[in-house]
């Protein structure tokens, strides 16, 4: 056990935490309702029920919440602190970032025993977030493209015209459905890594997403 003091650092600002938890909630809602839209259960007892109607309503509302959260996070990446900056998500563009990424990778592959401490995001994680971000974008685009078909020639349908010319309708459905599993795969990884770093770094990795504070040995990077 070390006896050194740690610095208490404010890392995750309020908008970052809000976006994170809105994403969690909306993805959970979207996944459950999405699954029920793709493989519906016959809840309806009479023709005047509206179970699928409500399930779809929740799906679309959560979709809007998710999209707004995503857009806000993008905007925040230009005005937030350095840990929220868009540069964080492109670590492979910088020498230092690449070095850290390799150290992180070696640690994950059980080659190194030394836990690399990261003050904000770790570069391996932000690279995964970048991929995830593009996955989210395609999720949003395919989702709204399918949604907009209820009002053909409307504003949304027209502005998503490029989607219909690039993909078949059923192709978008398949992608939208299958990407849910890719996101599940990410979530498994994400929760595991957070747990691992929490028990190894002793920097309050998990609770920092609630409080915003992490505890680090290093003062500044």
């Amino acid at each position, binding site marked *: 056990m070390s006896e050194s003091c740690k610095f208490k650092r404010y890392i995750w600002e309020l908008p970052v935490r809000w976006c994170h938890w809105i994403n969690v909630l909306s993805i959970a809602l979207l996944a459950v309702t999405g699954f029920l839209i793709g493989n519906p259960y016959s809840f309806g007892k009479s023709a005047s029920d509206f179970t699928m109607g409500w399930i779809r309503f929740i799906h679309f509302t959560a979709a809007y919440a998710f999209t707004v959260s995503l857009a806000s996070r993008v905007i925040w990446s230009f005005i937030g602190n350095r840990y929220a900056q868009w540069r964080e998500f492109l670590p492979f563009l910088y020498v230092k970032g690449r070095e850290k990424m390799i150290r992180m990778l070696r640690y994950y592959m059980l080659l190194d025993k030394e836990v690399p401490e990261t003050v904000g995001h770790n570069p391996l994680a932000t690279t995964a977030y970048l991929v995830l971000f593009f996955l989210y974008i395609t999720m949003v685009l395919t989702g709204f493209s399918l949604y907009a078909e209820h009002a*053909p020639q409307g504003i949304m349908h027209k502005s998503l015209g490029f989607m219909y010319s690039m993909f078949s309708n059923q192709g978008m459905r398949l992608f939208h459905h299958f990407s849910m599993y890719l996101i599940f795969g990410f979530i*498994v990884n994400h929760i595991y890594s957070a747990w691992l770093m929490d028990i190894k770094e002793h920097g309050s990795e998990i609770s920092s997403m609630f409080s915003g504070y992490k505890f680090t040995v290093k003062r500044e990077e």
Partner: protein
Amino acid sequence: MAKLDTGKISNVSKQGVENRDCSIGEILRQRGVSRRDFMKFCSVMTAAMSLPATFAPKVAQALDKVKRPTLVWLELQSCTGDTEALLRSANPTVGEIVLEILSVDYHETIMAAAGHQAEAALDKVIVEEKGKYICVVEGSVSMKNGGIYASTGGKSHLDRVRQVCGGALATIAVGTCASYGGIGAAAPNPTGAAGVREAVPGATIINLPGCPVNADNLTATIVHYLVFSKLPALDSYGRPLFAYGKRIHDNCERRPHFDAGQYVEQWGDDRHRRGFCLYKMGCKGPATFHNCPTQRYNEKTSWPIGAGHPCAGCSEPNFWDTMSPMYKRLPNVPGFGIEATADKVGVALVAGAAAAFAVHGTLNAIRKDKEPSDKGKEE
């Protein structure tokens, strides 16, 4: 269905030439079509064009005066289903009016003339009516290897459509084959089948996909041109918005069951008999734009979903490839064998990831790592 009216058909090529100078109203009166039937026809067309009922008298007025445009009908790689759809109308009067309005000068399947005589009729139209005739194409165009896989009258279909559609006022591609290549263009597409739009780029083409085309939509397209002197507004696939501007799912008579959460689970089950939604049986209504629910087929008798069969999505581009499997909601995942559904692949993926991390986690939990503060120095 009514028997094919053979008298009607053998008249086709003759009438076209004889009555060119008469207005449609005059021709109909000569042929003894009653005013009542004519008005009925006009209201059907007004509805098909998605116009308010008050337009019916205006449509009648315009049709009364207007002259018939010359029309040639090319039969390419097809099953003749569209011709059948047009001719086998249950209501002979309306069927007759349709043929009166379409002054068919050339139609390989139904014209009386044959051989050189028939070809001469076509050549005459192309030369004398250049830029004024309407061309209807049924079937896909074989494009591969210079179009050697299909020919009529010694000429490849490709050359034929380029010549005939190129000189037409407008071309109406009827049926899915003529619109997008249809079943001929389904993978692996050995003949390089394509729709007319692809074969004759630059020509004015209206696509009326569907398998077969709904004859009412064909007539309404021509009536639209006759009444308004312009072609109807089209969507990005070249389909008239009046017929393809709404999604089947949004006009479907089973939609209340969809919203309620009442689905057919198996063919012939109680729910099927009670007319529940066919979504789980692979219905492609949510992906298909067509006016089937309102226009229906065979003089509004029925349509696939009305008859208890899920929509196959026949009026969408590449439907043979993209809408299959017909009785499943989602396409199979490409590259994973035939029966790999998105759910199977996805669950395997997530389970694999979870297992990998479980092993990794166990190894990490028993391993003694150096935590950052152990180093005791700042970097």
